[in-house]
Structure formats: C-alpha cells, structure tokens
C-alpha cells in the first residue's frame, strides 16, 4: 500500500514535469506577451523596459530554469498581466469552480444512479425507454445551448432564477463560499444543472449497462429466492457489482468538469477558473496557463488515485500493488 502510494507520487511528479515542459514550449508560439500589456505605440526603450520587468529579456530556456527553480521553492511565478503570483490567481477562483462542479456531480449522481438502476432492472418498460431517450438528449445537447435556454426560460421569461453571477458569499476557513447562503444556492442551481446534464446522462447509461449485465447473474436470482427484498437485491447485490465502471467514469468526469467548466462558467458569468484560462490564453499569459494546466494534471492524478482506493472498498477482491 505504501509502496503503491510512493509509486503513484513519483508518476505524478513525472506527469507534472512533462506538462510544464510541453506548456512552456507551446506557449512560446502563441505570441509575445509584451505586446499584450503595453500600449502598441511604445518605443523600443519602453518595450525593453517592459521585457525586463516581466523577465522576458532572457532566453526561453533560461526562463524555464527560473520557473523550475522558483517552483521547487514553492513559487509558481507571476502573471504577466496581473503581476500577481499565478497560484494566488488560481486559488482565488478555485472555490467557485469547485462549488458548481461538486453540486453538479451530486445532482448527476442523485438522478442518474437510481434511474440507471431502474432502467437496467426493467429494460423493457416504457418508462425505461423514455429515460434512455432522455439520456441521449442529455449527451447530445451542447451545454451552451442548454444554458442559454435555461436563462431564457427560467430567468428572463418566468423570472424564477437569476441569470448570472454567484450571489452572496461568506468567508469559511478563508475561502469565499456561496453554497452556505440562500442567495448562493439561488444562483448556483442553473449553472450546476447545465453542467451536470452530460455527466448525468453518461453515468445513467453506464449504470444501466452494468445493471443489465449483473441482472443476468445467478446470484441475483439466489438472493431473491433467499428472500431478500427486490430493493435490497437491486442496490445491495446488483448496484454494488455494477459500480466499478460507474466510479471510474465518475472520477474522470469530476476531473473533466473542474478543468473544463469553461463554457458553463462563461454563460452564467460564474467567477471560476475557466474564464481565467481563456483570458490567459488570449493574453499569452504563460505563467498562469502553466500553473493552471499543472494543477489540472495534479487533480486528475489525485482523483484517479482516490478512484483506485474506492475500488478496493467496493470490491474487496481488488488489491492495489
């Protein structure tokens, strides 16, 4: 177990290093950040001064070395545009993104798992067919369209929910959170619903497929014959055995939503990470992009690690080595 953890940690360091190299190289092709921060009609002397201030007067290789050296000391570099530590900019926006993602994932799981179990256990019922068609819609409708429709209907036409923004926040352990206020919940419903639809549909379909597979097993019939209630059979024996792929996909989706909730965030003017990433790409703000992508890689590695741990808990036959 300890050996496994160490092995995963080393893998993670390697992945993060590769990400930093690739991003650094790629970003050198996306334009010169100096021209994004100074007036266009600046003289050469002013440009040189700006390069010096931003540390862009050195070669790319030197810049990378400086970056790596800083990082080993816990300094992730400063944004060219904001002139603030890149990590601070990201951490400042992370809680907002985590909020909609967590709420979206909870929505998705609460709706998708029971419906998936139902559709898998009763594949021939009309309701099951309706659920499956609905899930196809969930996968195929683009989130920007769903988001705009929700705003149009629920915010503009019927004025039930606000169209955008995060609402009131409160400080909790130094983080600004909105899910602790009523106003915050009022604001979070539409964006997290939009964000959850695709995940909901995918989890539903995976659960159903797993359940259909499990339903054919003899132990299901035995359990029923033994006198376990239908509900107990479905959730205790059926779902538990169908859960491995569901958890895998759940983990991947979680990482995906954290990293790329961009579109939903833009539509609902949600002050999360996605907006920062897009802006930084437009402004060629390399330090922010590098740290962002490294953080995303880190989150993926951690989630996958946790998913592996959950496997052993769901299925005691699995051990990690």
């Amino acid at each position: 177990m300890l050996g496994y953890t160490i092995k995963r940690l080393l893998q993670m360091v390697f992945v993060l290093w590769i990400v930093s190299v690739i991003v650094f190289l790629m970003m050198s092709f996306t334009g010169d950040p100096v021209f994004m921060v100074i007036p266009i009609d600046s003289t050469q002397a002013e440009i040189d001064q700006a390069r010096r201030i931003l540390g862009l007067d050195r070669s790319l290789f030197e810049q990378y070395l400086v970056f790596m050296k800083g990082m080993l000391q816990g300094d992730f570099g400063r944004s060219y545009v904001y002139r603030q530590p890149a990590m601070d900019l990201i951490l400042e926006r992370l809680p907002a993104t985590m909020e909609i993602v967590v709420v979206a994932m909870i929505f998705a799981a609460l709706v998708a798992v029971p419906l998936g179990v139902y559709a898998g256990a009763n594949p021939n019922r009309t309701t099951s067919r309706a659920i499956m068609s609905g899930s196809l819609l969930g996968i195929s409708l683009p989130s920007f369209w769903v988001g705009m429709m929700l705003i149009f209907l629920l915010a503009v036409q019927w004025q039930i929910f606000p169209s955008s923004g995060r609402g009131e926040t409160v400080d909790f352990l130094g983080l600004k959170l909105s899910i602790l206020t009523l106003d915050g919940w009022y604001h979070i419903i539409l964006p997290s619903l939009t964000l959850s639809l695709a995940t909901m549909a995918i989890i539903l379909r995976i659960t159903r497929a797993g359940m259909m597979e499990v339903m054919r097993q003899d132990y299901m019939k035995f359990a029923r014959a033994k006198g376990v209630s239908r509900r107990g059979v479905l959730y205790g024996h059926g779902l538990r055995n169908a859960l491995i792929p569901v958890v895998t996909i759940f983990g991947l989706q979680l990482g995906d939503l954290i990293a790329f909730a961009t579109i939903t965030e833009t539509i609902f003017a949600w002050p999360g990470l996605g907006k920062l990433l897009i802006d930084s790409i437009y402004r060629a703000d390399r330090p922010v992009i590098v740290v962002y992508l490294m953080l995303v890689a880190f989150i993926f590695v951690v989630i996958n690690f946790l998913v592996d741990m959950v496997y052993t808990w769901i299925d005691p036959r699995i051990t990690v080595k």
Partner: protein
Amino acid sequence: MTLHTDFKHLLASVAVVAMTATGAIAADKSLTVGLTSDAVHMDPQAGEELSSNIMYYHLYDPLVRRDAELQFGPGLAESWELTDDVTWVFTLRDGVTFHDGDTLKASDVVFTLDRLKGSLMANLAANIESFRAIDDSTVEIKTFRPYAALPNDLAAILILSEDHVKKVGDDLDRQPMGTGPYKLVEWVKEDRIALEAFDDYYMGEAEIETVTFRPITNPATRTAALLTGEVDIVQDLAVRDVDRVKRSEGYEIITRPSLLNLVLALDMRAKSPTIEGDNPMTDRRVREAMARAIDVDTISKIIMNGLSTPSAQYVPESHVGHVDGENFHEIYPFDVEKAKALMAEAGYADGFTMTLDATNNRYVNDAQIAQALASMLAKINIDLKLNLMPKSNFFGYIRVPSDQSSFIMSGWDVPSGDAGSMYGVMFYSRDKKDGYGQVNRGSYSNPEVDALIDKADSTPRVEERDAHLQEVTKILLKDIPMIPVHYEQDIYGASTAVDFTPRTDKFLWAYDMDIEG
C-alpha cells in the same frame, strides 16, 4: 383613552420610521453595470484595458480632465500656464483630499510621475522630460521640446497618494486609493466590483451612492441580466439583441460612434514582403485604385448591420488636426471602373498578389471585413490572400520593421483628442528620430510631413499645432499611405430609469450618471 393615544402615538412613530426609511432609500441610489470583462488592475500604472480604465477614473483623478466629448478642462489642477516654451506650471486645487483623508500635495504628483517613468505604462509620460514641486500646490513639468498637447497627455495620468503607495507597494492593485469620486468597497474577481461614493469628493458627492460592476462576458447573458433587472445598464449590447431590448418596455438602446478607427496600412517600400517583384503600391495610382475599390458603405450595411460610421479622416472631428469638410470617401468614392482604369494606367491591369494581415478576435467582425476586402479588391485583379490570427500573435507579428507584412488591417484610437500623437508614431519616417515612426507599418516617408510634424511638435500653442497638423492631414489624404475604413459603434442597453450619456472614449463614469430612486 390612554390606550387610544398610545396607539396613535405608535402609529405616528411607525409612520415616521417608515418615512425616514423610504427617504433613506431614495437618497441611497444604487446602480449596477454589466461590463464585458473584469478589470485586470486597479493600479493605473500596471496596465490598461477598458474595464481597468473605467475603474481608474472612478477611484483616481488626473490633473487635467477630459469630458465626455473629449474637451479638456481643469481636474486636480485648477489652472496651468506656460512659463517658457517647454516649462508648464500647474496649480493644484485647494483642499482636495484622498479617500484616507490626506490632502493632495504637489509631492504626490511628483511621486506619481516618478513611479510612472519606471512602470509598464511609461509611454504615457513619453513627452515629459522632468518635473518638480515648486511648493505644496504648484508643480512644474518640462517637456523635451515645445509640446502643446501636454494637458491632453496629462488627462491619462492618474494621481496616486505617495503615502499610500509607499505603504502598500505593488499591492496598490488590490488596495487602490485616490481622490476619485468613488471608493473601492469590494472586488470579488470575475464576480463584482463594488464602489461607494466618496463623501468629500472635491466636485461634490456623487448622485449615485453605490455602484456595482459585474463582468458578464457572454453577450447573450449580458442581455438577459439587463432584461431581468439584475443590471441597470450594459456595455457592448450584442447587435442581434438590439431589437429585442428595444421591444421590451422600460429599456432603451443608446449608441454612439467610437474613437476606434479601423485602418488599412499600405506598404510603401520598393520591395514588399508578400509581393513578388516591385511593390505596385509605391505608385499613388494603385493606392487610389485600392481606395476606390473598397466600398465602405457596403461593409457598414452588410457586415456591421449599419452599426459603424465610415471614417472621413484618420482622426474624428473633435480632434486637433482634423480638417473640416474633407472626407476620404468623398475624394475617392467607390468606383470600380475608375479604379480599373487607374490600375491600367499604372501598368497593373492584370493586378498582383499580396497578403492582408488582420486579427480575428480584436475588432467587431474583423475576419468578415477581411474577407469582404478580398472580394472587393479581386474586382481590380488584386489577389488578396488572408492571414488572420488572434490578437495575441498579431501585434507582435506586424510590429515595425513589419518585415512580414504588405497590407495590414488594424484599429487605432486617439483618446488624447490630438492627431499629432497618431501622426508622429504612424506617419513620421522610420528610424529618423527617437519616439517617432515606431508604428509606421507601411514605412511611409514624406519629408514634408516630417517637417510639419516637427513644427507641430515644437510649438507650445495649440492653434499653431492644429494648423500644422491640418496640413499633414491634407497631405495624407492626397498621398493615401493608409485607407480609413470605419469607426465601430458603441452600443449600450439601459433601463429607462438610468440617465446616461455615453462618452466618446467609452469610459463609463457613474459620476456623470443618475438613476431614478
């Protein structure tokens, strides 16, 4: 009886409380503005883009104030005079206080200029050679050479508090403090910026007590937020939403031409990077043919939905250096036959091939305009290849010496209200004088123009400067080193309760606005 009186008493006091409560609400007017993006900075020397600029002018003040119509008048400086050709003496207004209660002193101005010179925005002080405080309320500024537009330049320099900046350092970006009409209450990145009126503002307290700016990037969401009443006014209303907002009761659309002039720079070098053989554009007839082949009215009607104003000259009417009555598109009206004839006369009846460099995410419909230009110039046999790129690549790519470009589409705005600042950098011969010609992308060079700009930049008197710059404008209209296309239109959507007149420079300023209680 007693009970009855008590009850009446109670009712009366409730009424009084209620009245004072509503009274208080009426006095505390609040306004919410939907911006296209969050401010990046609150430190005016850290960078510039529209949202940050809007914040700067709420939090700080310049020495010279530029009003909504680009007229310049006293700001923190009450008056100024020229003591010799290069020396200006500014007298500060009495009793101006910063948000922290400190009084504005000449040393704050000196400190501001000093810090500016070493910052990323040093360009703003490019014409200033030296400065010093004569006493607590007088500042002397010397320019490198006689320079009549100094007050215009100063309108872009916002005065900081020396004590405060020394205390917070670079954290000024997060703890801004100036003399402006509003104080920062809260800045939640990408969510909202809340401002509160500064009671002791030297021009009198603002009508609107609290102003909240909300960055809403997606145009459709911005419209939705307006229609749900979450915001009172939005910037850059999407063209497709204009009708919808007009139809909704209680909202209005407000438009005005912006300062941003979309221009096409023509390469004037003998050899041009993307043209094989000699550069045909060195021949004035070819340049005129190109000007005549481009139909700006069609671009405005078809591509911009009528929301653009064809530009008559290189700078708008309000500017020093504008020649009344001259219009590029009347001198060279759209006329393909005439254009073809000119091409034939110049010996290029069969045309030539070159590349247009343009952005695809900087100006309104920039990519479509580039495509339209290609099809228009094809009519006179110019085969225009398009090289479109995002702005982050573009401005480095076209940079002087522009050795990859023959034909460039870009925007240029002159918020200083003075054509000289544009002409000096764009039309002065390259590499002749420091600080001149650094964005002369077409490498235009006319000794007469250089001489006139030199003259304009060596008189401290605005009338003379204006006369010289008008001469330059006339020569440019004849020489065609650049084809002006159009000014984009600024479009705002607002609740009718808001009293708002858009500014030419696009800087929304709550101090000038009001809202019905």
